[in-house]
């Protein structure tokens, strides 16, 4: 099983720091702050060297709001709206419970006539909740079969081979980020086949972890 603390660290790093050069065109201040936190908590890689290519100097990434994030998850993981996060099985995370931190607003009940201008401290938590729920739903459906997304894994088996991990990562990159992942990103995701203490994780847990990691990268909500 995936330890909750491990999940949190992975998600936090992925959400606010990104893995690899996930946001090569921006130097967003939110992302910049997150990089430091993530490294300090466990990565231990020190300060990243400057990118070997030109980066944007506009500092003007946009926040992808709730419904676009929701739609991208639905498209990427081949899920219906009702299969995404519902708190208590009743209340839509996107349309009701986490609407505001995900970038939406409620004009009719809360008289909130404009959405927040920038993400809040709970945005990453809400995003993680949404993405994790979607990933678990997709993995469960693929385990029940026929597999739609995790077609490169033997979901009932363990451990996951590097070939399987890379193939899965490529699929997730194309489905969730609409691009091919960099080699460095594939290497990061390959690390998820191990729980950090030398034990192999199950294929099912790897599928959830890889999905959560790719699905909560900075470019999931910034563009």
């Amino acid at each position: 099983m995936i330890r909750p603390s491990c999940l949190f660290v992975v998600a936090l790093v992925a959400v606010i720091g990104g893995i690899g050069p996930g946001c090569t065109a921006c130097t967003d201040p939110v992302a910049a702050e997150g990089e430091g936190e993530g490294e300090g908590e466990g990565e231990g890689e020190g300060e990243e060297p400057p990118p070997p290519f030109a980066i944007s100097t506009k500092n003007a990434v946009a926040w992808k709001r709730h419904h676009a994030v929701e739609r991208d998850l639905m498209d990427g993981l081949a899920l219906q709206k009702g299969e995404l996060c519902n708190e208590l099985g009743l209340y839509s995370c996107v349309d009701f419970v986490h609407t505001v931190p995900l970038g939406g607003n409620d004009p009719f009940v809360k008289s909130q006539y404009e959405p927040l201008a920038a993400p809040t401290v709970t945005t990453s938590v809400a995003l993680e909740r949404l993405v994790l729920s979607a990933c678990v739903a997709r993995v469960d459906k693929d385990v029940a079969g026929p597999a739609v997304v995790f077609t490169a894994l033997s979901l009932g088996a363990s451990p996951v081979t590097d070939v399987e991990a890379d193939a899965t990562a490529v699929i997730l990159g194309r489905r969730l980020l609409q691009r091919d992942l960099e080699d460095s990103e594939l290497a990061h995701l390959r690390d998820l086949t191990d729980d950090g203490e030398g034990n192999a994780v199950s294929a099912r847990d790897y599928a959830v972890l890889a999905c959560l990691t790719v699905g909560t990268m900075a470019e999931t909500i910034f563009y």
Partner: protein
Amino acid sequence: MKALRPIGLPTGLPTGLVTGSCFAVVLGIAFGAATASAKPVGPRLYCAHYDDTPACRGAVVSCAQCHTAAPDLNAYGIEIASALTGPYEDVLPEALTAVEGNDADGDGLSNLEELILGTRPGDATSFFVPPPAPSGNTNPRFTVGSYDAAFAFRRMSIAYCGRSPSYDEANAFASAADQSQALHDALDVCLASDFWTTDALPRLADKRIRPLGAIGVGGVIPLADFAWDYRLFVHALTGDRDARDLLRADYHIDVDGNVVDGVIAGDGDQQVGGQPLVVDKRAGMITTQWFLMIHTMFSELPRTTAAQAYRAYLGQDIARSEGLLPVDGEPKDIDNKGVDDQETCIYCHATLDPLSYAFAGYNGIGGSGGNGAFDNGRPSWTPSAVESSLLDVPLQNVADRGVVDWADVAADSPQFRQTIATMFMTHALGRAPRPDELDELQNLADRLVDDGYRASALLHRLVDSDAFGVP
């Protein structure tokens, strides 16, 4: 330069007597005891002098340009006050010019540089330094520093289709022989999508309609139906329609998307949920039952209604000291609310009250004909006792015409064009346009005229702009 309307301020300011906070009185309300003829003339004079600066393009400069909270001056205002050498109205242009080379707020930009950029010369936290050109080897994913069609395609898809382009769509776009054509073709598809018409556009309407579920149809105490408002907003800003219909539509849009004219019956004595106005009293979004009900409520002089129309469709928020164009002899305090008692009230009400007279014939909540109806029994004063005015244009016969002429003046104003362009550009970028993007914003606003005020045409121009497509 716009011709100034005579306002009858006293003249003869002794040279050298006006400094510091004393200038506040001069700038805002002239000299001596406050009277109904005292008013802030600064914004009008300022924009006559700097009519092509961002603060005056499609707007009247805010009092905040020179004041912290009127009548207190900020650093820039104090510099101007110190440079006055004679009667305020006569020498203000000269004083403005005299301090152009100074840096009143010490932020490293001269006053003139800030005026040109559109930042505030009296606020050290308001400044802009253009970003440096990107340097380094070629970015593998983005054409940073110049227009990147793939980046624009992705931004367009998220903004107007509500989703990222798929991996296959992105690759197909990358290999398109004519990426510009592909971008615009895709935009047409997105602008017809459910996301744009039922989600994104309605959210742009929220702060203009200001719905409240508890008193909407289906709410606890239904008083009007704001669904009519949302439908008209979307209708006017989609297809090849004229966006000025936001203010000039004499029709409504029913639940099936059909145009319907005239009175639409509602429930009960107050006609709740219907639309009580005949065609010749209709003026788009600012005369729906909801708009009149929620803003006018029980007011005889609907100041809140006029202020919201001014804010929502002309971008001028009087509560923020924006758009102040005082009318001579105002405020008359025609409804005896005491708005001519204090200088701080007069500042805004000399503009606001003349804006409001045209709305006085319409009910808010209750009254003959129901909520939002035009009631010949309103208001209690003699129509000739007041003069309605919008953007320095006197409006005749509002007792009979209601706000129809108000809406016509507004719809053809640069303020309306600026508001529409700003609304769409801010939505697309996810932030307000920055100083180095204001020329493109102005171009979008100006070209609305050539494009027949079609929002779709504006959006096609927008996706071609550097602000939109340069990562």
